């Protein structure tokens, strides 16, 4: 069943994002997903996307509002949308409450932005709860942090590897291998962290990246995804046909690794 496809890194907008065209953008994602054959979008809302607090440092109020909006979308699109609960680890009690509530409301994963560096101790209670709840953690990552970048306290693969070593029972999705920076550094940084699974999303479409990721980590640790640019997701999907994968390998990357990480119960549409 190589034709199945799960996008493990998607986002939706909402009315609180300060954009008049937010509904158009959400519709465009779903329409493009239909054309690409995406069976399920695993998505998050990032607070107010900078409208009332910074995207990567969302206020607790914006976190809650964003998660509520995300839940509504998932409930409206049960046949094709699952969701991550977004949290800001600087507000520990709020973050833990959001995760517990969202789990009750159907969230299947936790989304961490760049509000705190990945190896910070403030992430520990969140990762512990995620493991107990069986919720993978999608962590925003810069590939090889060589300096600070504005508007985010950015982490890289080495930072995430330190967190993953402290939480071997927690499964981590390393966000957007193609999302900026040096992906080759990341592959080395997480090679010995079996609970880190990079997703292939991002606007970066370097030739050689797919081959190198699969060579370094194996097809069983790589997840297909889009993030903000679905055309690059489609390009990578088509390119995967030319990197010498077996049908099993291709199915792993397209959807089976996601099912293993989140659990089959998370994707009834895949097994329908």
């Amino acid at each position: 069943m190589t034709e199945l496809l799960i996008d493990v890194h998607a986002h939706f907008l909402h009315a609180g994002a300060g954009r008049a065209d937010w509904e158009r953008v959400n519709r465009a994602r779903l329409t493009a997903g239909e054309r690409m054959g995406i069976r399920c979008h695993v998505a998050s809302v990032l607070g107010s996307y900078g409208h009332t607090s910074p995207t990567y440092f969302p206020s607790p109020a914006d976190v809650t509002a964003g998660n509520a909006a995300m839940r509504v979308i998932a409930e409206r699109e049960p046949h094709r949308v699952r969701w991550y609960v977004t949290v800001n680890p600087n507000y520990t009690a709020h973050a833990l409450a959001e995760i517990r509530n969202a789990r009750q409301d159907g969230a299947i994963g936790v989304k961490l932005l760049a509000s705190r560096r990945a190896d910070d101790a403030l992430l520990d209670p969140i990762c512990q709860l995620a493991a107990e709840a069986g919720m993978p953690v999608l962590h925003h990552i810069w590939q090889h942090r060589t300096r600070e970048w504005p508007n985010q306290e950015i982490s890289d693969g080495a930072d995430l590897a330190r967190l993953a070593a402290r939480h071997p029972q927690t499964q981590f999705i390393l966000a957007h291998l193609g999302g900026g920076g040096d992906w080759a550094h990341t592959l080395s940084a997480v090679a010995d962290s079996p609970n880190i699974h990079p997703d292939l999303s991002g606007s970066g479409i370097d030739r050689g990246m797919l081959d190198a990721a699969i060579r370094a980590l194996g097809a069983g640790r790589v997840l297909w995804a889009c993030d903000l640019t679905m055309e690059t997701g489609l390009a990578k999907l088509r390119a995967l046909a030319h990197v010498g994968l077996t049908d099993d390998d291709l199915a792993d990357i397209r959807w089976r690794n996601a099912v293993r990480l989140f659990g089959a119960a998370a994707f009834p549409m895949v097994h329908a």
Partner: protein
Amino acid sequence: MIDVATWIGPYPFRDVPHPEPAILAGVVEREGLSGAWVGWLPAAWQRDPAPGNEHLLAALSPHPTLHPAPVVRPDWPRWERTLDDLLARRAVAIRAYPMHWGLPPASAAMLALGAACAERKVPLLLTVRFEDLRQRSALDVAADLTAAHVRALARSHPDIRIVITAAGRDLIEETHWGLTPEEQQRVHWDFAWVWGPPEEHFAHLIRTLGPARFVHGSHWPLRLVQNSQANLDLLPDELRAVAITDAETLAKTVGKNPT
């Protein structure tokens, strides 16, 4: 359909898989393209482009679908003679890298090259960037091509044809809407770095600039060749039948009234 943005040869800042002409010729065939304008990748970082041009011409000669797009550096001695020599040796377009050479937007040398290309009915090919800023090597200090460079060239000669590769929506719009309708017709863009859905920058540009301003470019061997077709395939339903320009026609239109 011609791919206007391909190179052969090694990239200075990372290993690129088999950047060889035989591989590119196979990719062109596999993707259903009629051919590609091909440059010598290291040339952007070399002071004298002449050795790279020689490598390029020799390497492409066995491959009829690969058309040389060599470099002419207009602040280099005897560049006009170089230009004529390259055109006599089947160059179909001329590349220039003003950012790498430190040439400003109103550079007399660049404007002279633009005029020379216009008079010889050959497109001038400029590249905005080779890599995303976020992953660029600390040694790769050339800034992205600016809209001011493109506007200056577009205004400089009525017969000039400029092809800009690797521009994003912002640069395209800043340039296009800063030109007269006549000047706009002198510029074509590839859309390899323009976002598709869900933001739909490409659809927006098709609607506002028209599909005729766009040509196909992949940035092989640096980037996945599948991206531009993916962008076309994900256009909204009402735009899927639009026809972008085949760059093969550009040289034929140089010197004629734009349509």
